[in-house]
């Protein structure tokens, strides 16, 4: 049986991936006000781009991020132009209903497309240094996991800086708060929505790249990741974008603990239990200001 510390550490590593995946969903939800059920499929597609770079170019998975991120960013731009742009401008109940239906359908389309292009076989990326890492008092910290956590932290800080300190970032926050006021300030909100959606897709793709060497990749993994990301944004509090990181870490740790101390089968259930618990006890989320 692995030690408590080891379980905690692996929980944190898993949670970092949940965090970055959820951050993309939270960003899109917070700004476009749509719940993108196809978010997990963007995670999946990002993974396949990374897998392709590994299997044909032989690139290290961390290096491939430099193509994974722009590739799925562009996919995001295209999906916004042909699909989401039409939903974002709808109002009220229509918008919520249509965003759920359309993104659910799009998720299926992307999944089938991946099935046709890449087959249903499970893929994963094996790096030469897979088993190596630091060993601190018997707690193993693999290089791959440390690098994953490091990149997640850097991306989170970069996103924070971008949103709070740059002009285009502030335009995104302004649009999230009040899109009409944003228009009256001269902001082209259609453009803001497009860039935000693409940014959310790129965040999903980073998570997807981590999936390729941490878990395994298949066309069907999308729904799992959408669900995980949804649980995380409820924990974080809808509207909290960067809160997705601590909430993701929390989910990772809770799952790891439940897997280790209850039974492996309770791992998934534990996540849902805290999800419901938070919804009932603190529906505004755990990591919102104010």
């Amino acid at each position, binding site marked *: 049986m692995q030690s408590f510390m080891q379980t905690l550490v692996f929980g944190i590593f898993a949670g970092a991936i949940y965090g970055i995946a959820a951050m993309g969903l939270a960003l899109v939800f917070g700004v476009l006000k749509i719940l993108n059920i196809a978010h997990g499929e963007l995670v999946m597609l990002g993974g396949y781009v990374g897998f392709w770079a590994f299997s044909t170019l032989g690139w290290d998975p961390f290096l491939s991020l430099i193509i994974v991120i722009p590739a799925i960013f562009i996919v995001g731009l295209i999906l916004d132009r042909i699909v989401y742009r039409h939903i974002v401008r709808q109002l009220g109940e229509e918008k919520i209903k249509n965003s759920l239906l359309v993104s659910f359908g799009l998720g299926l389309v992307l999944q089938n497309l991946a099935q046709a292009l890449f087959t249903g076989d499970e893929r994963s990326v094996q790096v030469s240094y897979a088993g190596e890492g630091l060993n601190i008092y018997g707690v193993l910290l693999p290089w791959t996991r440390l690098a994953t956590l490091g990149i997640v932290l850097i991306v989170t800080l970069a996103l924070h800086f971008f949103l709070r300190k740059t002009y285009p970032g502030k335009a995104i926050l302004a649009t999230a*708060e009040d899109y*009409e006021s944003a228009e*009256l300030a001269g*902001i*082209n909100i259609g453009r803001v929505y497009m860039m935000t959606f693409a940014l959310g897709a790129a965040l999903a793709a980073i998570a997807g790249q981590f999936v390729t060497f941490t878990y395994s990749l298949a066309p069907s993994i999308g729904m799992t990741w959408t669900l995980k990301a949804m649980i995380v944004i409820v924990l974080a509090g809808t509207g909290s974008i960067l809160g997705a990181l601590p909430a993701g870490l929390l989910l990772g740790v809770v799952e790891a603990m439940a897997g280790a101390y209850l039974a492996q089968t309770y791992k998934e259930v534990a996540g849902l239990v805290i999800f419901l618990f938070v919804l009932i006890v603190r529906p505004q989320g755990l990591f919102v200001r104010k």
Partner: protein
Amino acid sequence: MPDFLNVDAINVAHGDIQALWDVSLEVGQGEIVALIGPNGAGKTTLMRAIAGLHPLKSGTVLLRDKALHALPAHRIVEQGVIMVPEGRRLFGGLTVMDNLELGAYSKRAREVRANTLELVFELFPLLAERRTQRANTMSGGQQQMLAVGRALMGVPKLLMLDEPSLGLGPLVVENIFETVRQMNQQGVTIFLVEQNARQALELAHRAYILEQGRIVGTGLGDELLRDDRVQQAYLGICPAPEE
């Protein structure tokens, strides 16, 4: 006759319910024009339609020769038509400074941002003191100053204000109206919607009266102040009892 903003026979609906019926009005360059009318008359709808937030069913809105009704809202801002919306609608979670900077988002305004900011801080020194404060932690009056300041950051040619005095104390209202007068003297054309009809008519050169989605009257500000019907309906003055 004024040839700056021309609203010609516009019809606007909220879903199936028509809110504006063949509304026409004009605002000349350098004028202060007020729009008064009871609750639900369609004043906000009219302003929002001009600003591009609400589509027209028919009719035209021209600024000089430029067809505003064919432009999305942010392009109308680029033309120098800037609105302070009813209820202020600040970016509450952002700082005073962020709100002001965002007000200058359009390309035209961005180029002169530093100068405009100095001007706004001169008009509202309080905003300079509180530049790092979050907008939603300020008082109503301070928020209205910020809302006006944010609009000024867009370097308006035509400044539209929707009920700027709403919910504010008399001193703050005085301050806001005084600012509007100053802006006008510096060449900004003003279109003002007000519940507070007396102050609006005192300030305005001309005014229109909107009732149930239709323009029912127009005239010079002081003419309307003396008009029996306006006095009764909007100024709370009862006609002298007849013997």
